[in-house]
């Protein structure tokens, strides 16, 4: 059943067959424009002298019944009623095209024939029509290339993913206080988009030496999804991290959050080979507009509005971010009181009954307008002098993966301690109340709460949690990761155990990883 066509199709493929076939696809099968929809055909050089006014059967006038068009002359006939078959027999025109789906039928072979050249034309015309209709690119099923077919044939082993299989789960040996690294690795290997990127071999390495961290990540993904159940020993990864992020080298316990940022930074820098090229084939070398996979997944935009208290002029800046660090109650900076007006808690379904601080509380505090005191006056562009102002942070652009860092480790001048206040966080998070656009609507007096709840762009799902047990001096990191839709596992270095959603939500929480629920094409 290869797309090799048949001898009768090959007999058709002579002279001017390509443009003739294209006309048929354009006018009768995939009609893109209003004109072609009216089915007027004027193609003198192809010898189409008749004006085909509409697609109906020339025998019975019906337009359903799987209408086919003869490839050799202007004749439309029903397939179901065999009108096109009669025509084929009488005129010995043995090829016809199905006007619904564009398939080529050979009356001699008595089946639809797949010819590579014809398929090519059909696909191109379909894409053109979609573009004219304003539909753009549609999803089309994967068709393997010749090389891919060869690879599949030479590697016949197949892995089937069932609902309770443990693919992707693997323990990591602790190489000496490296649990901080192990947790982040677990979170990254279970980030769906990152996993898809690496498993489909999308990294093209341009580094000369063997020290590319992205290549090592690629290897890591291969190890994790290999199906091996024994714990993996990430010594190469550790060595590369020490090489590229010197401040993390050594066998002391490090901060998992610091490791995350350092790892993302090195990966981002090493992704040079994967940046997209513009139309001239030149690489987009602008460091502010990197399009590497790390930026695509993790980079968001944080908007900072500074409002002058005198002239009310607003100065706005937008800075990229990979994570949101949130202050907690009990730290030396005051947490309460928050501004009143809290529908946010209801949006995210968290309960305030127990009096526990919620993630949404922290986010509300993060995005509240802050009065910068008289000792921190800002030069106002409108007033041309130093004035008191308020500053407010909101989300301009949300990343696909949002990482929240609860600032549990206090390193102030007075004390170094860990804040163990329980913060409740939800499985599903709606970021709409914290968006810059929401703030603008509120300021314009539009209360769009209900509409925004229906908007799916800002909805996130929890997929990984990194926890720290112990004190600042000696502690241990573990993580919870989500493998299938509702299957959670606890990763404690080399030991992976099944966990319940309750275990996850009851945990203290240090780093929280959320993934956008709905992704859109650019």
């Amino acid at each position, binding site marked *: 059943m290869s797309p090799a066509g048949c001898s009768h199709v090959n007999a058709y493929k002579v002279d001017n067959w390509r443009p003739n076939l294209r006309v048929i696809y354009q006018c009768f099968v995939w009609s893109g424009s209003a004109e072609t929809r009216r089915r007027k055909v004027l193609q003198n050089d192809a010898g189409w002298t008749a004006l085909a006014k509409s697609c109906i059967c020339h025998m019975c006038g019906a337009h359903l019944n799987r209408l086919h068009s003869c490839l050799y002359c202007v004749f439309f006939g029903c397939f179901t009623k065999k009108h096109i078959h009669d025509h084929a027999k009488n005129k010995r025109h043995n090829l016809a095209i199905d006007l619904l789906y564009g398939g080529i039928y050979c009356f001699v072979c008595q*089946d*639809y024939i797949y010819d590579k050249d014809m398929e090519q034309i059909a696909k191109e015309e379909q894409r053109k029509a979609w573009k004219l209709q304003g539909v753009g690119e549609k999803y089309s099923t994967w068709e393997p290339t010749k090389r891919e077919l060869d690879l599949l044939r030479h590697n016949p082993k197949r892995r089937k993913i069932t609902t309770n299989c443990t693919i992707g789960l693997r323990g990591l040996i602790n190489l000496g206080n490296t649990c901080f690294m192990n947790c982040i690795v677990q979170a990254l290997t279970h980030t769906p988009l990152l996993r898809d990127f690496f498993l489909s071999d999308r990294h093209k390495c341009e580094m000369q030496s063997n020290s590319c961290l992205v290549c090592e990540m690629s290897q890591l993904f291969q190890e994790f999804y290999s199906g091996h159940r024994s714990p993996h020993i990430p010594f190469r990864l550790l060595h590369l991290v020490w090489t590229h992020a010197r401040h993390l080298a050594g066998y002391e316990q490090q901060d998992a959050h610091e490791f995350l940022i350092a790892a993302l930074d090195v990966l981002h820098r090493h992704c040079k080979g994967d940046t997209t090229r513009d139309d001239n084939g030149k690489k987009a070398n602008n460091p502010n507009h990197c399009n590497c996979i790390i930026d695509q997944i993790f980079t968001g935009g944080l908007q900072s509005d500074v409002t002058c208290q005198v002239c009310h002029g607003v100065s706005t800046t937008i800075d990229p971010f990979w994570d949101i660090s949130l202050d907690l109650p009990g730290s030396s900076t005051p947490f309460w009181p928050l501004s009143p007006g809290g529908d946010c808690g209801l949006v995210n379904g968290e309960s305030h009954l127990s009096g526990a601080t919620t993630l949404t509380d922290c986010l509300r505090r993060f995005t509240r307008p802050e009065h910068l005191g008289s000792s921190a006056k800002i030069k106002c562009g409108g007033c041309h002098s130093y004035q008191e102002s308020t500053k407010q942070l909101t989300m301009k652009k949300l990343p696909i993966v949002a990482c929240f860092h609860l600032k549990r480790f206090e390193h102030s001048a007075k004390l170094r301690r860990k804040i163990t206040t329980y913060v409740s966080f939800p499985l599903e998070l709606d970021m709409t109340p914290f968006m810059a656009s929401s703030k603008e609507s509120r300021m314009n007096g539009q209360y769009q709460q209900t509409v925004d709840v229906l908007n799916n762009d800002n909805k996130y799902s929890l997929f990984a949690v990194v926890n720290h047990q112990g004190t600042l001096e000696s502690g241990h990191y573990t993580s919870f990761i989500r493998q299938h839709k509702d299957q959670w596992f606890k990763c404690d270095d080399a030991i992976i155990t099944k966990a319940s959603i309750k275990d996850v939500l009851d945990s203290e929480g240090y780093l929280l990883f959320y993934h956008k629920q709905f992704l859109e094409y650019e």
Partner: protein
Amino acid sequence: MSKDSQMRSAINQRLIEMGERERLKELLRAKLVECGWKDQMKAQCKDVIREKGLEHVTVEDLVAEITPKGRALVPDSVKKELLQRIRAFLAQHSTL
């Protein structure tokens, strides 16, 4: 051609010219995927292919076996919605 099929043709012609037929097709496609009908059909096709053998099965075999099942399995809600859309269209372009 009977009066009924004449009317059908006329309506169909209008739908095509105003681009409504394509829109209706897209709506139907989306609805049939949403309700799982497409997956059901795929499974049915696989059964037929297994039955007849990959090297011997023809498109005709599939059409003959799948068409009645496919028609029967379209949910009523989808039929209703499409019908509503067509009615609304006709109401708007009442010259027919």
